[in-house]
């Protein structure tokens, strides 16, 4: 960053209001306080979470995203469940499921599954990876603004955790009639669910502040 303050809108804005924080759930205004490790700031009016202490830095976040990518590939490549019946075996992979639902005239379900279990999680990972790869060097990635907004809208639509529970229920249901064994894919999915849970305590919005606008 340069020493002379750039005259951009964002910087002017920052000078006025950067120490303020508005509760998203009730619009109460707070002055920001420094949080210690493990602290969670809650709104005094509606009790919603205002801010958490972020103990993970950009490098660690990047590492976590890369790990999620590796696990995600495994979860998609390997079969999730194997079903044996009279000597024949059927393996179900995520894409096998999506294609099967399309063929069975439930295209809506097929598209829902493809988006919430494959495309949105993939998008989220790639976006975060891209933003962080630049961010850890202290620079804003090309398209930072638009991609951050996109990330905000994709946020609630990834459902890999739900799928893990779905696999469990399916195994039990199919087990009533068949010989079912969980496959490598399901372990990859379980690992994915754990990583996603870790990630859910990270506020992606902090990237706006942690990666400053480079002086033009």
């Amino acid at each position, binding site marked *: 960053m340069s020493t002379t303050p750039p005259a951009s809108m964002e910087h002017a804005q920052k000078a006025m209001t950067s120490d303020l924080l508005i509760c998203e759930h009730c619009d109460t205004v707070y002055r920001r306080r420094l949080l210690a490790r493990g602290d969670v700031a809650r709104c005094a009016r509606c009790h919603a979470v205002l801010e958490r202490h972020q103990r993970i830095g950009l490098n660690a976040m990047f590492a976590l995203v890369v790990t999620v990518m590796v696990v995600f590939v495994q979860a998609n490549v390997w079969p999730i469940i194997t079903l044996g019946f009279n000597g024949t075996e059927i393996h179900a992979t995520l894409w096998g499921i999506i294609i099967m639902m399309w063929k069975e005239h439930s295209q809506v379900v097929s598209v829902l599954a493809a988006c919430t279990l494959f495309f949105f999680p993939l998008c989220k990972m790639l976006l975060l990876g891209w933003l962080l790869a630049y961010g850890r060097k202290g620079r804003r990635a090309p398209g930072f603004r638009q991609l951050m907004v996109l990330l905000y809208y994709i946020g609630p639509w990834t459902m890999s955790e739900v799928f893990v529970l*779905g696999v469990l229920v*399916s195994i039990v249901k199919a087990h009533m009639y068949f010989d079912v064994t969980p496959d490598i894919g399901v372990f990859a999915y379980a690992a994915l669910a754990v990583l996603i849970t870790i990630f859910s305590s990270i506020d992606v919005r902090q990237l706006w502040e942690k990666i400053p606008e480079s002086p033009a």
Partner: protein
Amino acid sequence: MSALPRAHELGLIGCHVCGLVCRDTQIDHAACPRCGSSLHRRKPYSCMRTWALLIAAFIFYIPANVLPIMRTVSLGDVDDNTILSGVIELWQKDSPDLAVIVFTASIVVPMMKFLVIGTLLLSAHRGTPWARRQRAALYRLVEFVGYWSMLDVFVVALLTALVQFGFFSQVEPLPGVVYFGLTVVLTMLASQSFDPRLIWDCQDDDD
């Protein structure tokens, strides 16, 4: 001014997308200087949108429960399952614990969403200070558990892909699952379009 000032009292707006605290310039179509999204004091047409989505979701919810979601064919025996009969089957065949999970995800959560969002909307219309903290907590709960209802949709998809032995055994999805999937998506959209700030927008401020 109360001890806990609200954004409009200080002439501020928080960007809904990136959270930046901005000065309220009173201009229509003002954009957030940081992320470029348009700034609103409240989500635009929040009540109207939420009502529309909630009613649409409820319309889809009826066929989702009445129509079967899955057909199991086993040695020529055809068995159509609805959401509820699937839960009962799990309960009877040695997995009451999973039956409770599926029952919660597929029946309790959607019903709760209709009730909670409906209540939030009605009380927001009336601007009543009644149980605001609890209503705020209910809203956060609905936001948090909403997408777990997709569970049953994924189960049907998984079983369809797994069990395909032609005449001997086969699982097919039936239209109920499509309606159910759409119900879940619509209720998620409904809870996202509701603005929880409306809960606190009323005259007296005795909190």
